[in-house]
């Protein structure tokens, strides 16, 4: 299939890629933009490892056509945020630090997807209840942690956001 040049808004910047029109966003991110943080874990959009934010909403990049997100001639298009765009001012975001400190990530393969889901959750709802957190995370699979330590990490990240990063550690 012949490639086409499209422009994507990724992590706050405009990126041009020449891709097949049928190419999935996940493949465009991983193969054409070398943003390999987003992972492929399944064939049927069931695991959430490829989760990215599209204008702040968590979506599965493995089921989106990259070209459908291309910017218009003025460079306006949906803002795609990947895990590589989560760190703030050159430092890890509170949620990224907390996932490490509290055992939220073991093998780490599902972690970028969870980070994106949690980021969206906390932006929507800065003080989620346990039930809110469970429901928000239910679209992402993890085979290592049993999720328990993720809840601790998320709560620590919320505390850190409220009180400053120093309180996120154990």
């Amino acid at each position, binding site marked *: *299939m012949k490639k086409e040049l499209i422009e994507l808004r990724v992590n706050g910047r405009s990126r041009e890629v020449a891709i*097949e029109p049928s190419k999935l966003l996940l493949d465009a991110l*991983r193969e054409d933009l070398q*943003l*390999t*943080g*987003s*992972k*492929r*874990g*399944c*064939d*049927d959009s*069931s*695991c959430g*490892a490829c989760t990215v934010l599209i204008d702040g909403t968590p979506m599965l990049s493995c089921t989106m056509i990259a070209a459908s997100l291309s910017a218009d001639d003025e460079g306006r298009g949906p803002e795609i945020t*990947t*895990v*590589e765009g*989560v*760190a703030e001012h050159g430092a*890890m975001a509170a*949620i*990224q*630090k907390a*996932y*490490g*400190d*509290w*055992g*939220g*990530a*073991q*093998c*780490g*393969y*599902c*972690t*970028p997807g969870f*980070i994106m889901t949690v980021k969206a959750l906390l932006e929507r709802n800065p003080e989620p209840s346990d039930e809110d*957190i*469970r*429901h928000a*995370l*239910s*679209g*992402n*699979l*993890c*085979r*290592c*942690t*049993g*999720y*328990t*330590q*993720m809840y601790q990490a998320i709560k620590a990240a919320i505390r850190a956001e409220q009180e400053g990063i120093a309180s996120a550690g*154990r």
Partner: protein
Amino acid sequence: MSEFSVIGKPVALIDSAGKTTGAGKYADDLTLPGMLIAKILHSPYPHAVIKRIDATRALAVDGVVTIVTGHDAPNKYGILPVGHDETALAVDKVRYVGDNVACIVAESESVAERALELIDAEYEPLPAYFDPEESMKATSDFIHAEKPNNVEKDYHHVFGDPDQGFREAAYILEDRYLANEVTHAAMEPHSTLASFEFDSQTGQPGRLTVWSSTQVPYYLQHKLSIVLEMPMAQIRVIKPLVGGGFGGKSEIIPLEIITAVAARKAKAPVKITYTREEVFWAHRGRPRTIVDLKTGVRKDGRITAVAARVIQDGGAYCSYGVVTILYSGALLGALYDIPNIRYDGYRVLTNKPACGAMRGHGTVNVRFAFESQLDELAVAIHMDPAEIRRVNLLKPPCITINGLRVQSYGLPECIDKVLQGSEWASRKGKLGRGRGLGMGCSHYVSGAANSIIRSDMPHSTVNIKIDRDGGVVVYTGASDIGQGSDTMIAQIVAEVLGCTLARVKVVAADTDLTPVDIGSYSSRVTFMNGNAAKRAAEEVKQKIVTAAARKMACAPEKIAMRDDLVTKSGAALVLPDTAASVSGRVEGQILRHSVQQKRKDEGPKDQMSFEEAVVAAIDFSAALTGTGSYAPPAEARGGKHKGAGVGPSPAYSYSAQVAEISVDEETGVVTVHKIWAAHDCGRALNPVSVEGQVIGSVWMGLGQALQEEMVWKDGLLMNPGLLEYKSPSAVESPEIITYIVESIDPEGPFGAKEASEGSLAACIPAISNAIFDAIGVRLREAPFTPDRVLAAIKARNEAQKAAFRGSNEASKPTQFREHGGSLWFKGRGPMRHPADPARAGATNEPDAGDD
């Protein structure tokens, strides 16, 4: 001041930043210039002779580079020396739906996929076997010609006098338990990248480098050498970050060989990454296991004898099968004191993907049966289920009837912890109808005392070097697959050397750089690699201490190293203003120069910084390096009977669990509300990791107990995706309360033992026992899906218990969302021989011959 400065404190995994920021690289994240992509053609037949593979049309596709078939790599291999029965691509025949037939190497994945469709492969179907008990009756068309009756291996062990034991029993129960097949489903699908370099002398492809998602880089190096007929020294295996293993990457998976063969043939770097469906076909998970179990007890609860007959549905290749069937028997011992054991184990071949090692290898399904039956016996003799377990505790140090040496034994404390936590005494049997508490216990090895390839070589070796910059570099072959072994090694080294964790850099699992470690399986890494790391660090420490003692003009025994300081004992501790910063880093260059100068001026002192001591040691004894290795002691290696090599371990971990559940008797849905899990890990080197491993194990057991199951239809997997293979999501996962019990093993590094597998097995019987407590129904087939729960309730209501026991048909799932994967969608499978007995009653006509 606590005894330790680094271990015993919760620390983030040293590689966690890469994981949470996306910067860390897994195998599929890697690319090389000129890299090609390969895709594999899989068999649509469960059992067939390959008549012909014609790739003319496929090779004509623009962008296709080459095709690889079994004849390009015909040497057989297998993880066990007794089980060399695999070729990465089928040579003569295929043995399961999904078996590897050919591989197309192309410039892109889409080109390779298109070309796969154009390969003309012709098969001659053979009768296929799907049920192990049927497979054992086969008289012809064996899956492997050299394995008559399709029995891979059978073992018959008798310890003590089981017949006499049963005569002494006041109460005997005998039942059939069944645990269905489950798989690892690690989040990362397998991926391998292989690249050859040209040899400057010969001009031919020379050294090979392989990056692979593996738990066993050294075994991969070994098997690649067998198949490619290359010296091991010419092969470098690098393990990048691995996205979980659970045993699924603990042996050589076909793609790892195929990628290397393809790279050699294509003369370019090649990468293969499995789709999720291919991961299910590669499998190597926990086999469907039929356990016929008989246990006798006296009136006081003491077990007098156990007899178990175990049949495992091993799939089409040996894999770890011989070890799995031996573990099933051997680990009947070492949890409780059982005076008489009879064990008959059969590992049977069937035309399905091979089963292998999965978390809790070999023990889980038998433990489910045993702990369930013990619960029933407790009911029968009117004893509390916790009490019957206490009555049968071992009295270590001891050697069990089947030759397993037990030294540290935290099971009694584990039981106490979960009883207290769950308020067992006041709540058991009192939660009202439909809600109940159940208990289960389990144990696991801290590594096998005998390695797969029998030899006296160390199981782990670790090297350390420290340069004048004061940076500690540890070279370990241990494979971190997410369990945190790199962090554990760094902690042990930092503790021994008395330096901060931030000084320690771990270089791991690269066969060119790191000394041999046999891999991350059977929960061996903390115990074995940890001991090796400790010994290596002690060797280095000795050199530093000797030099420091000379500088401080005292005996070496007077020197202590802790928190980046080297101190003469008895001297008052003076914290220098240049002490380690929060991050543990010291302004090395400047400090060293100025302090050295100062020390020259001032003469002997009572205290040095770590860096000063390192410089002194290098000045004193040249290069500052150390090596440590570990091999299990002879006393821990077990008995002399056939098969005695599997089961012995230098130390065993212990677990006890209580589950609180409720059952909806209308729908059959079991809800787990809370699990209390206590685990004896010897010593928790990194409590946050131990807790995470215990919770993860319990949770994986929960999946097997309630919802995970591989569903087969004539050899075709009906749920080869994460949508249908139901791994518990956040909403289905209960709260798991953990208690870490530290029994301080005399041989473990700082007393540490296994933490990552042992807790899994206790969860399944804890839940089945809780179901009995809730509704008085005994579930003997896992997982306890709503269908099976309802069938069991119905069977009880109709008072047909005997009939239910005799047939598992009643509880087969009927309401299962099936799609059968890509083969099913393409209308291809399952196809089979007209004379195949499994076809009886099938409606679809076979499309014999050409595909």
